[in-house]
């Protein structure tokens, strides 16, 4: 089994990387019960986040009551 060291904030732990053969050092992965189940796509994350930033900017220019 291909194991890797995964860092979560200030702690590290071993996780099995067999389900993410494309993952390399420096990549971000989603880990579940000791197994990496996906490699986070920086491109997809950036694309989604860009959309979210636009939504936030639109909201800021028309401020509303907050709870």
């Amino acid at each position: 089994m291909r194991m890797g060291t995964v860092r979560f904030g200030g702690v590290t732990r071993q996780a099995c990387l067999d389900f993410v053969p494309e993952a390399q050092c420096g990549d971000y992965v989603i880990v579940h019960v000791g197994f990496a189940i996906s490699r986070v796509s920086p491109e997809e994350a950036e694309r989604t986040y860009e959309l979210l930033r636009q939504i936030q900017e639109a909201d800021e220019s028309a401020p509303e009551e907050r709870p």
Partner: protein
Amino acid sequence: MNAFVCPAPIAVQDTVLLGHGSGGKLSAALLQQIFLPAFHNPLLNRLEDQAVLDVESGRLAFTTDSFVVKPLFFPGGDIGSLAVYGTVNDLAMGGAQPLALSAAFILEEGFSMADLRRVVDSMARAAGNVGVPIVTGDTKVVERGCGDGVFINTTGLGMVAAGVDLSAANARPGDAVILSGSLGDHGITILTQRQGLELEGSVESDSAPLHTLVAVILAAAGDVRVMRDPTRGGLASTLNEIAAQSHAGIAIRETALPIHDGVRGACEVLGLDPLYVANEGKLVAIVPAASAEAVFAAMRRHPLGAEAAIIGEVVARHPGLVTMHTPFGTTRIVDMLPGDQLPRIC
């Protein structure tokens, strides 16, 4: 002619034997070679069955605690220092300066003598840091398999100064809730040692004696209502106890809670909520609103209060319940733990 007497002294063994708890020569050797050199003080050195203390009249605070932590040694402390500071802190939360401690050991047959020496020396250093003598004690040994290395009980006596009246039942609506520093360091340190997590950076147990911090708090304000140290069950349990005993509500703000990154990361991985993780060198002080700034400033000036934060207030609504204002502007309950905190599986 003189009877033959074996001239060789009884050497300290490598491991603890049943005989070390039986009150005979092995027990005496343990006392002379491990406990007395470490804890030495005039009262203990008398080796009576009891220590007699001359105390001024007043209110005597009296507390006991047993320590069964596993692993025995961890970043930031060990079972020995924990046993001293834990009991000193229980006294301090009542406003009592520590007078004297007792230390009772239950050792498992086969326990490493080197480890015992390490624990005892750590206790001696801790007691020295506090300036409190360990004046009496006891040692028992149980068969292999009937203990877990070492269990320690410490009992403490302290004097409460006149006019100091701290109680979990004292909190009143309008009071400020002040936390002395970061949450979860001790519990996460222990858990990560057991769960095969490696700690990077500076996460370590916050085990420390709080009596001098308590002293500056009491000097800063004469009307402190409550002080508690959030140990087992974490801040959430402590605040719930206070809310219940005071018949008041407590409202805190999530963004005000100091939590170190390493603790955050470990909590994410283990599925834990830092509010429920044990602390061993932190306290919660509840003070009338008018005294909050003075107490807060005094805490911040003290090394153990450098990260102190005003985290919320006591409220009249929802008596007995603790609520938390989330970063999203919503409110949720901070409940009591039903039992052990169990991690999520999905």
